[in-house]
């Protein structure tokens, strides 16, 4: 591998700039679609870009009682982590990450960082709403991380068995395995895991019904309440990148089959759009917000049972 391959992957494609533009565009489509589903006109497709530019030129206010280095450092860490994570998810036929990057376990840890960053940001801001957001974010994370790990384990074991080993946590191998044996989307054993993974989307992306830590009408955006200007913009960057990462991860885990080259990229974009429509937009317009205790109980019931079912089935078969 060339020496500049890592920086290129992290900063330009498929991480960094590419993922950011893609994430913001997806956000624009999502907002427009949701508006149309609610019989509103909705904002222009480029609204997330406008928002980001506007925030970039504003001032960041730091509350007197906030701890400044943590308050300003948190969004930086969050955005940087997601940039790195975006370079770790393979795009079938287009991009295969270096083995050092394409590890699912590392990616799982990186995916937990935005939530941790929000918690730190919330408590560093010194606002009581931030503190409430902190405790909610933590409870929610504890609830959804378990099922997520089980889903990933089910897939790893499946791929590992296929290769005569025990489990494989290499995303490249998972994609290659599905290219040979057919996507997990069409494998009945993996359907419960897929459903559990779909429940993880709204929780990780912080959308209704699981936008509990940031609930506007309850805790006024929680951890983000005190943020403004470029610091808030960085959080927007983080969430745009995160949406690309988790959506592409879903595609890599369950339906990576695609032609190579430019056609592969086009197919990937179509899948992203479709997955976002089904997994994000339709979900968030068709239900209300749960209370944190309800969400906690929900995750410990359905996604946990479903992911466990897949894992057991995979191990037994």
């Amino acid at each position, binding site marked *: 591998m060339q020496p500049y391959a890592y920086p290129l992957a992290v900063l330009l494609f498929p991480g960094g700039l590419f993922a950011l533009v893609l994430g913001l565009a997806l956000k624009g489509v999502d907002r427009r679609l949701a508006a149309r589903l609610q019989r509103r006109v909705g904002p222009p497709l480029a609204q997330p870009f406008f928002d980001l530019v506007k925030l970039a030129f504003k001032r960041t206010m730091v509350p007197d009682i906030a701890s400044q280095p943590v308050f300003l450092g948190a969004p930086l860490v969050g955005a940087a982590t997601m940039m790195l994570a975006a370079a770790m998810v393979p795009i079938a036929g287009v991009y295969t990450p270096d083995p050092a990057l394409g590890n699912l376990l590392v990616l799982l840890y990186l995916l937990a960082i935005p939530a941790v960053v929000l918690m730190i940001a919330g408590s560093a801001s010194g606002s*009581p709403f931030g503190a409430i957001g902190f405790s909610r974010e933590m409870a929610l994370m504890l609830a959804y991380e378990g099922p997520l790990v089980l889903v990933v384990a089910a897939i790893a074991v499946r791929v590992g068995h296929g290769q005569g080993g025990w489990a494989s946590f290499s995303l490249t191998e998972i994609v290659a395995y599905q290219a040979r044996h057919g996507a997990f989307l069409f494998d009945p054993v993996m359907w419960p895991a897929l459903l559990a993974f779909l429940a993880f989307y709204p929780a990780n992306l912080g959308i209704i019904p699981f936008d509990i830590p940031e*609930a506007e009408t309850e805790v006024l955006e929680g951890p983000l309440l005190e943020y403004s200007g470029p610091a808030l913009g960085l959080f927007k960057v983080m969430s745009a990148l995160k949406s690309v990462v988790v959506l592409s991860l879903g595609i890599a885990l369950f339906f990576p089959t695609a032609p190579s080259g430019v056609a592969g990229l086009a197919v990937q974009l179509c899948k992203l759009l479709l997955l976002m429509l089904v997994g994000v937009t339709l979900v968030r*317009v068709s239900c*209300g917000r*749960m*209370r*944190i205790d309800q969400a906690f109980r929900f995750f410990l019931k359905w996604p946990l049972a479903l992911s466990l079912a897949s894992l057991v089935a995979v191990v037994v078969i």
Partner: protein
Amino acid sequence: MSNFTIPVGPLHVALEEPMYFRLDVQGETIAHVDIHAGHVHRGIEYLVTKRNVFQNVVLTERVCSLCSNSHPQAYAMAIERIAGIVVPPRAQYLRAVADEVKRVASHLFNVAILAHLVGFDALFMHVMEVRERMQDVKESVFGNRMDIGANAIGGVRYDIDAQGIGYLNQQLDAIDAEVVEIIDLYRTNGSILGRTRGIGVLPHADAVDCGVVGPVARAAGIDYDLRVKAPYTAYDRLDVTVHTLPDGDVWSRAMIRLYEARTAIGLIRQCLRDLPDGPTIDSRERPSIPAGEAIARCEAPRGELIYYVRMGDSPKPERVKWRVPSFMNWDALRIMLKEAKIADIAIIVNSIDPCISCTER
């Protein structure tokens, strides 16, 4: 879990009007509530004594936009009682029509906000769309969307012809069908039920103690509606159904409002069917109002509204005092918010449909 003091209000995205709750919370649970008021005091009770009887019809309409028909109506009723003015039968029916039109719009508005607070914005948009039809009706019939200016001393300021009745009936059919659907949604939707059943409970005994009125009382099983208990305008000739539910939770209050919206549509239909001919206002254009005092009551969308008016020798009232429904329901919030979760504060506060500008005038 640590303890916080969090401010909800005076300006808060979930509150439509400024009110201030100081909450001591332990983790997600409320330990203590302080309710502060007084942010939108405009001195209207004082202003009323500086204007003459007829100007005050306009002024009282501006006390609050959501009950903007009930205030001038109760005020006019009190003045009519002092002066012994008899409102013509047609005007009585038209007053009931205006009252019920405002009631439908007000109840739908509150129920829509509930959906918004629960985070169910698609439902919020849908209910607001239905309410928008009622706003259109108001604009077409009365010429205004909120302050419809229907009332005058001795009668009403508007009339409906055959074409208007046809239009109203047609719009009511459309709204009625939508409201039936909305009732079904609120009764069955998991998101709504999960967030509103068993939340902010006001037990029957506490409801009686607090003297709550309107939908809040009826949702706690108190069968009290002025339109039946002390009929005014044309309500003694109309068939008013009073809905009650036993549970006293947020969901019951929302359902009562939805049922009442349907009943109100039925009442408008009855009025339009039975509308007698004749004048719409007392024949004397500016009757002189003698000295005296009177009390008038009417059922505003939020509950019983009481007006006291005392007239002296001048054409300006000596004293006008009103007791608004939110004033009675306000204190019950302490009971509803006890041990509630932070997530439910806005939902519970909204469930009494607080009208701050009425209460603080």
